C-alpha cells in the first residue's frame, strides 16, 4: 500500500494556494494518494517532502543478495505475513556455523557435501557462517581461507572487531559475504568496511529500538545493503522480534525494518537447536544460522523450508511416472492416480501400509486432484491409456490389470476399450486401499 492522503498531507505546505488546480492541500493529497495527480504540480513542495514521498513507493522489504555466481542467496522482498495470503518468495538461507577454533577445513568439506535428494527435488544447505571465537585475527583469517577453499557457497563472517573483519574481508570480499555485525559500538567502522567492499552488512542492536536506531545511522552513512538482527537470543523473544520486523515492514511500511532478517540459534543440544531453527524458519527469518551439521539434522529443516515456500495457489505436482512401492514383482498390482502431490502421497502411504509391494502410475493432470481432473477432462480414458503405454508397464508386468480410483468408476468401460486392460474399480478414498488390497491381492 502506498502513502495515505493524511500522510502525504503532512508533507504539503498546507497553504491552500489552489495553484495545483485543486481547492485545498488536503484535496491535492487525496488526489496524490489515488495516483490522480503528480507532486510536480505543487510549486511549493520541499525537497525533503519529495524524498520522503518517493521512498514510500519502494517495496516493503528490500532484497539483499549474499554470495556470487551460482551461489547467490537472494533474501527479502517478502510481502506477506501469512503464506496463504499470497506466498513467501525467497526461501530462508540455512547456514551452518563453523568456529575458527574448529577444524574449519574438515567441517567446511562436510558442509559442502550436504545435498539431499527427496521426492524428485534437490535440497541444498546454501550458506556457511564462519565465526571468530578465538579473538585472533590470524586464526580467523586462516579459517576463512580454509572454508573458502572447500566451498563456493555464500558465506557469513561473524566477528565484532572491525580490524579482524578487515583481515577476513581481504581474503573473501570478492565472494560478497554477509558481514556480521554492525553494533552500536562498531557500526561506523563496520559500515565503512562493508560499503568499501560492496558486501551486505548485518545490523545487530540490543533491542528493536536500538536496531532501528542503528539502521537509521547506517542509512545516514548511505549504506542500505542490510540484514537485521534484534539481538535477542531467547526463542520466544526472537519470535516476537522477527514478527515485529515483518509486520512493521509489510503492514506499516516502516522503512527502518524494511530489510531481510537473520536469526542465530542459541541451543547447544542439536535436537533442541533444530527445533529452535524451525521456529525461526516458520516465522520470518530470512537467514537461520545453526551449528548442527549432520544429514539427519538438516534434512527435516530443509524439507520444511521447501514446503513452506511453495506457492499455495499452485497445486504441487509429483513427477508423472510409474512409482514402485516396496519391491514389486511382475505380478504386483498397479494403482493409477493423478500427479497432485497430496493425492499421490496419500495413495502412496496407504499402498505402503497395505504391505503388498505395488506400483502406482501417476498420470499428469497438471497437479490437480482426481475429481477435479476428471471434470476437467485431464483424467480421461484416453489420457490414462496413453500414460499406461508410455510408462513401460507392459514390459514390467505379466498381468494386464489396473486399479482406478472409485470416484471415477464411470471410466471403467471406456478405459478397458481404450487400453485393452482389465480395469478394477478401487475404493473412493485412499483410506480404503488397505482393505481393498487385502481382499484382492493378498
Amino acid at each position, binding site marked *: 500500500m502506498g502513502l495515505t492522503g493524511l500522510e502525504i498531507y503532512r508533507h504539503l505546505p498546507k497553504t491552500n494556494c489552489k495553484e495545483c488546480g485543486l481547492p485545498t492541500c488536503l484535496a491535492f493529497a487525496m488526489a496524490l494518494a489515488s495516483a490522480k495527480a503528480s507532486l510536480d504540480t505543487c510549486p511549493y513542495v520541499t525537497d525533503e517532502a519529495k524524498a520522503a514521498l518517493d521512498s514510500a513507493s519502494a517495496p516493503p522489504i528490500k532484497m539483499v543478495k549474499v554470495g556470487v555466481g551460482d551461489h547467490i542467496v537472494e533474501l527479502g522482498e517478502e510481502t506477506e505475513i501469512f503464506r496463504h495470503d499470497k506466498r513467501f518468495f525467497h526461501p530462508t538461507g540455512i547456514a551452518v556455523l563453523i568456529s575458527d577454533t574448529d577444524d574449519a577445513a574438515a567441517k567446511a568439506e562436510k558442509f559442502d557435501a550436504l545435498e539431499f535428494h*527427496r521426492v524428485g527435488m534437490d535440497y541444498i544447505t546454501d550458506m556457511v557462517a564462519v565465526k571468530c571465537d578465538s579473538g585472533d585475527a590470524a586464526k580467523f583469517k586462516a579459517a576463512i581461507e580454509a572454508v573458502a577453499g572447500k566451498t563456493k557457497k555464500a558465506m557469513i563472517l561473524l566477528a565484532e572487531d572491525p580490524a579482524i573483519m578487515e583481515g577476513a574481508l581481504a581474503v573473501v570480499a570478492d565472494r560478497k559475504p554477509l558481514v556480521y555485525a554492525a553494533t552500536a559500538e562498531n557500526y561506523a567502522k563496520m559500515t565503512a568496511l562493508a560499503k568499501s567492499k560492496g558486501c551486505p552488512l548485518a545490523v545487530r542492536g540490543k533491542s528493536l529500538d536500538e536496531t532501528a536506531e542503528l539502521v537509521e545511522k547506517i542509512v545516514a552513512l548511505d549504506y542500505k545493503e542490510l540484514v537485521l538482527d534484534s539481538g535477542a537470543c531467547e526463542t520466544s523473544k526472537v519470535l516476537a522480534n522477527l514478527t515485529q520486523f515483518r509486520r512493521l515492514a509489510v503492514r506499516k511500511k516502516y522503512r527502518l525494518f524494511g530489510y531481510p532478517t537473520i536469526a542465530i540459534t542459541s541451543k547447544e543440544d542439536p*535436537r533442541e537447536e533444530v527445533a529452535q531453527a524451525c521456529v525461526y524458519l516458520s516465522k520470518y527469518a530470512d537467514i537461520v544460522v545453526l551449528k548442527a551439521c549432520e544429514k539427519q539434522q538438516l534434512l527435516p529443516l530443509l524439507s*520444511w523450508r521447501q514446503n513452506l515456500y511453495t506457492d499455495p495457489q499452485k497445486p504441487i505436482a509429483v513427477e508423472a511416472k510409474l512409482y514402485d512401492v516396496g519391491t514389486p514383482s511382475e505380478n504386483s498390482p498397479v494403482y493409477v492416480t493423478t500427479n497432485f502431490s497430496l493425492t499421490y502421497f496419500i495413495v502412496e502411504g496407504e499402498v505402503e501400509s497395505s504391505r503388498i509391494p505395488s506400483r502406482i502410475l501417476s498420470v499428469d493432470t497438471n497437479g490437480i486432484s482426481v475429481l477435479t481432473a476428471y471434470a476437467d477432462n485431464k483424467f480421461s480414458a484416453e489420457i490414462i491409456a496413453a500414460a499406461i503405454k508410455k510408462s513401460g508397464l507392459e514390459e514390467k508386468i505379466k498381468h494386464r490389470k489396473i486399479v482406478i480410483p472409485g470416484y471415477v468408476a464411470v471410466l471403467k468401460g471406456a478405459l478397458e476399450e481404450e487400453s485393452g486392460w482389465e480395469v478394477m474399480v478401487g475404493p473412493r478414498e485412499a483410506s480404503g486401499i488397505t482393505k481393498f488390497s487385502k481382499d484382492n491381492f493378498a
Partner: protein
Amino acid sequence: MAVEILKEKYRNKVGEVVLGATSDQGGTRSHTITVGGEEALPFLHFEGEIPNRPVLVLEVWDIVPTEWNPCFEKHYGDVWSDPAAWARKCVEEFGAEMIQIRLKSADPDLGDSSPEDCAAIVKKVLGAVGVPLIIVGCGKPEKDNLIYNPIAEAAAGENLLLGVAELENYKAVTSACMANQHNIIAQSPIDINICKQLNILIAEMSTAMANRIIVDPTIAALGYGIEYSYSIMERARNGALQGDKMLAMPMIGNVGLEAWRAKEANSPTEDEPGWGEQEERGLLWETTTAMAYLQSGIDILVMRHPEALKVIKSSIDDLMKDNS
C-alpha cells in the same frame, strides 16, 4: 528510538476446554488439563494472553504395533502388549501429559474386539494412570459407532476426549459424548470449510457440545502436504481470533502417526545413506512436524517418539516465556 510495536486487535479468543475430571468433579483423574483460550497467534504473548501450554500426548495402541518402525521396540517393546503398562510407562518414564488410546483391536481385520472389551481396556488404562485420556476408535466408522457408547458410559464422569466425529459420521459419537459429558474430536479432511460445517452440525445437535469440541483438521506430515494443513490451521486460528466462533476451538494433531508414515522417518540408514542415521532422522522428522504445527496454533500434539516429546517439551518451555 522507540519503535511502536504492532499489536493486532482481536475480537474473539479460542474457547477453553477442560479435559479429565478429579474425584471431586466426578472422575478419578489426579488433575485436569485445560487447552485453548489463546487471545493471540501462537506464542505472541505481547499481544494477548496464551493461558495454556500446548499439551503433549503419547499414543498407546491396544494391540502390539507391529507396523511401527523397529526403532520403537527398545522404547516400548517391554510394555506394548499391555496398554495399561504402556500408558504408565509413557506417563512415568517419558513425561506424557496425556495418553491417547487408539483402539485398533476393534478393527474387524485386527481382532474385532467387542464394544465391552474396548470399554474394559479404557477402564484398565484409567486405573493405571492419573492423566486425562483421549480415546479414538479403530478408524472404521461402522465399527467405531458401536463402541463409542459403551466406552462413554464406562468412563462416565471422566471427562474424556473421545473421537472421531466426521462430516459423514458424527451423530453416534456426539450422542455418546452428550449423554455422558465427554469432549469430542471433530475431524475434517484437510478442509477448512468442512471443519467449520462439522462444528456447526455438532453444535446444532447440542449447544453444550459446542464448547466441548476439539478440532482435528487432519494434519499431514512434513514433506507430505504439511503446508496445506499448516495454512488451514493458520487460517482457522486467524478466523477464530477475528470473531468466527465456529472455528474458535482448540486443535489436535496426530503428529507421531503422520510423521512416522513418511519414508524419511523410516528408511533404514543403509538404504538412504544420503539422509543420515535413521532413528535420529525419524525423531527429528517428528520434531520438525510438531514445531511447525506449534507455529500454526496446535493445542494438543499426539506424539510417538519419547525423545521427540522431550525436545518439544523443552521447546514449549522456551516458547511460553513472556515476550512482551
